[in-house]
């Protein structure tokens, strides 16, 4: 199995991301989105309000209180929802992920990253997933 993704070079410095399938387990509707690698994020996945609405994730919310602490200072309330997360043939899992009210891009954090063998090849600007 091979998974290789070029860094997003539209941002400076360029940024690695994973093409992630996000599936509503109730409707089975699937969206594929870029999830930017963020090892500074301790959770699983943070999605935008736009993705929450497109996938109708109001059907699968979890009543638990989660707060994001940004850089040790700013606190933002998150909305947890349950989805299926897919990354090629490497990863398929039901996960509790979080809707952030202000976020502009999807972030994948250590709760998922720590389940993968990821190689960040900076000089070649590619991310590879290995078995």
């Amino acid at each position, binding site marked *: 199995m091979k998974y290789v993704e070029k860094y997003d070079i539209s941002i400076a410095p360029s940024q690695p991301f994973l093409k992630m399938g996000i599936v509503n387990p109730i409707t089975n509707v699937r969206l594929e989105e870029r999830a930017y690698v963020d090892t500074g994020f301790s*959770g699983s996945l943070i999605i935008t309000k736009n993705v929450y609405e497109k996938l109708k994730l109001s059907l699968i919310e979890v009543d638990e209180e989660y707060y994001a602490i940004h850089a040790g200072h700013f606190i933002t309330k998150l909305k947890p929802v*349950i989805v299926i997360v897919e990354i090629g043939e490497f990863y398929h899992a039901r996960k509790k992920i979080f809707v952030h009210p*202000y976020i*502009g891009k999807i972030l994948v*954090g250590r709760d998922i990253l720590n389940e993968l063998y990821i190689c960040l090849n900076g000089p070649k600007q590619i991310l590879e997933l290995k078995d």
Partner: protein
Amino acid sequence: MRNIFVRGIDENVYREVKARAALLGITLSEVVNMALKEWLKKPVIIENSGRDVRRIVDRLVDEYLAKGVKGYIVVFNRGERHIVCRSLDEAIDSIRKAYVEEKIYSAVIREIKPRPVKFLEIGGGMLEIRGEI
């Protein structure tokens, strides 16, 4: 430009803002304008129905806890009805069934126990998170 009178400003906050504005050589009006513009950048999230559902869920959890019931509660359509499930799998299956049969538009799952409060750390600053840089 509009002139307004604002009540109920926290005394300590007012003093600190006034002192900082003086240091920066700007007026309180300029500070207020900056703060209001920042607040407007935040997307509007309607939480009222969320709070009502939360109250309903809390009440149900308290009732079931008192009876010694374990498992998960699923509340449909902001409180129209609810069911109790033994597991998360069963809760998700129930929502799926209800969605197909009744066309529900929302469902909230809660484990029958006191609501946990958890914190997640995010390293990025707000401008980066918002995608502005």
